[in-house]
């Protein structure tokens, strides 16, 4: 076996001839399908790969994609975005978050608008920068608005660990980390989306292990294939799903074998468990309350919990989306972005009505950027 080069990890999984070969193999297998395939790709990153590389154009017509809720910014209800804005407006505060949150519209404003109004709001590439900023600004309240699925949660835990080690007292956390399996359960419980297979998120699984999907095939009689992000990965995963259907199998398989194992990164999992626990309720945009689907800081860390410390300024009323915004329906897999009346007209990445258009993992954003011919 020859030596692996870094560029193989990119070009090898984007090779046009391989994609052609996979499309050809899928076409042959798909002829034998007894019913059309409706695959939900849970993760926004997969939606982007599918759109960017135009994969739908390479597949037979009996295979369709249903876009899932795997976009951590998209699923946040407006009242929680208003939380971020309220925190940013605290005197002598610095609000830190990851890039996508900045332009998401809340009920009346957005972090971008507040920043233009003079609030100290910073987009971090890495959550670790929160430590640096807290140390450099000892007289300010530095608040980290943490978002993300299982992929990004350990990074918040690592920051909490560093904070503890260094005895930093002016750093607070507003935790909005969410979990994939409960969201999938909620969508399947709804029953309307008619999903009969899943493409499981790649990097969530790197952390949590593919074990978190084991219940899905049994519970919903749907195959699950954990897929990498490159177009070859996604095409191979589709081939694996079609083969499962034709062979009457219903299993959890790992396509992304170069990075995903059954158990995942147990060190990261332990670090998360040390600082966070599942919270009883969390309202998901469009889907409503999903019990035990999100995390919060453990009691021992109440002193750093922005939701507790700044509770008096945080709004509590749930706020619904604009009437014309169907983000919620799209997140449940019941509509596509171009079904939306305001898609691309009143709602664009520059003037978003909903977060699905703003976030780099939102379905609406993917459709807008990589619009199909």
């Amino acid at each position, binding site marked *: 076996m020859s030596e692996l080069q870094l560029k193989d990890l*990119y070009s090898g999984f984007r090779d*046009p001839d391989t*994609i*052609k070969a996979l*499309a050809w193999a899928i076409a042959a297998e798909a002829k034998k399908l007894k019913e059309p395939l409706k695959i939900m790709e849970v993760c926004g990153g997969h939606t982007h790969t599918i*759109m*960017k*590389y*135009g*994969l739908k*154009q*390479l597949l037979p017509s009996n295979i369709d994609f249903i876009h899932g809720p795997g976009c951590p910014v998209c699923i946040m209800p407006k009242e929680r975005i208003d939380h971020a804005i309220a925190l940013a407006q605290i005197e002598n505060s610095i609000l830190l978050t990851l890039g996508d949150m900045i*332009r998401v519209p809340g009920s009346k404003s957005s972090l971008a608008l507040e920043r233009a109004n003079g609030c100290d709001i910073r987009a971090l*590439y*890495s959550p670790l*920068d929160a430590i640096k900023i807290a140390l450099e600004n000892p007289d300010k309240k530095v608040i980290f608005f943490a978002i993300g699925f299982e992929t990004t949660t350990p990074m918040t835990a690592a920051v909490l660990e560093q904070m503890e080690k260094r005895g930093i007292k002016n750093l607070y956390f507003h935790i909005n980390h969410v979990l994939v399996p409960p969201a999938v359960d909620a969508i399947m419980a709804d029953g309307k989306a008619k999903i009969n297979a899943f493409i499981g998120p790649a990097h969530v699984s790197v952390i949590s292990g593919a074990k978190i999907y084991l219940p899905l095939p049994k519970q919903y009689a749907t195959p699950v294939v954990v897929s990498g992000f490159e*177009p070859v990965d996604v095409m191979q995963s589709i081939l694996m799903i079609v083969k499962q259907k034709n062979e009457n199998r219903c299993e959890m398989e790992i396509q992304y074998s170069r990075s995903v194992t059954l158990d995942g990164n147990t060190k990261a999992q332990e670090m998360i468990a040390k600082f966070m626990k599942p919270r009883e309720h969390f309202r998901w945009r469009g889907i409503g309350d999903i019990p035990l689907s999100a995390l919060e800081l453990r009691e021992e860390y109440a002193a750093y919990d922005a939701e507790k410390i700044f509770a008096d300024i945080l709004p509590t009323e749930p706020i619904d989306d604009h009437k014309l915004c169907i983000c919620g329906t799209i997140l449940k897999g019941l509509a596509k972005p171009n079904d939306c009346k305001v898609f691309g007209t009143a709602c*664009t*990445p*520059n003037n978003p009505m909903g977060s699905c258009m703003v976030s*780099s993992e939102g379905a609406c954003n993917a459709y*807008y*950027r*990589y*619009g*199909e*011919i």
Partner: protein
Amino acid sequence: MKQIQLSHGGGGKETNSLIHDLFYRYFGNDILIAAEDAAVLEVKNKIAFTTDSFTVSPIFFNGGNIGKLAIAGTVNDLAMMGAKPLYLSSAFMIEEGFSFDDLETIVKTMAEELKQSGAKIVCGDTKVVPKGAVDQIFINTSGIGEIEKEGISANNLHEGDVIIVSGDVGRHGAAILMEREGLGISGDLQSDCATLWSAVQALIDSNVTISALRDATRGGLSAVLNEWAEQSSVCLEIEEASVPVDEAVQGICELFGFEAFDFANEGTFIIAVPQQHAVLAVQVLQSVDITSKATIIGHVTMKKEGKVILHSLYGSSRYLDLPKGELLPRIC
């Protein structure tokens, strides 16, 4: 004289010293040092006139500085109209306390860059403002060029025209992104900032018919292609695989989820020529040092007027839209 003081912009003795010791020393030519209220110029034919202000941050970056940009940017705008760059004005707005050595480096770079086109700075202005009123230094340059080839216009593309790019795309934007603090990335990537007149001159001399010519600055390749599609009411069909992108630019795009087609360039242009002139145009460009990597990337059709279609390696196609939002502020 270690730092620029408010007095250097006051119009008195200190201003005079600065002008003579720095600007005249490096930019010196008969018109400039005549030191009149306005430069008196004479041209034979139609002229092109352009202006640009430069607020790039950081002011020194891999592959150039704000001065190089200020000259190349304006000279290139003239070149893109088929005009030989002749005369420039240059206005400086300097923050009090700015390092004299840095100013000298910038001015020296500007003088070097002027040599690439032969253009001269014939008038200027210097303001020094209190701390905080500008961020270190802003420069405005305006330019006059004499038109040598008429008819080049964004409204001029026709079905069948071939689209050629003069080099690899996205380097300036990617290089600036790399220098931005807080991102913690490093690499050898250099901005493509360069004067393009010699390449345009070669094209004019070869009698190639040019439908349209534009340098791909803010908004990158995507912006130019979309502007052309809209203004000429045509469709531009581009082969994704043929657009040259440097590996390091690709690396930055991977890291931050950007597209190389959206990144700014400061020394790369796009040209549309009728089918029968395409091969010659590419040959001419490839024979000039700064455009040696010129290549055909697509052609003009009427498939979907006003839109740009990108054909992938994989047999799929999608629209290439204008980049949105604040991609990178203060890029040029």
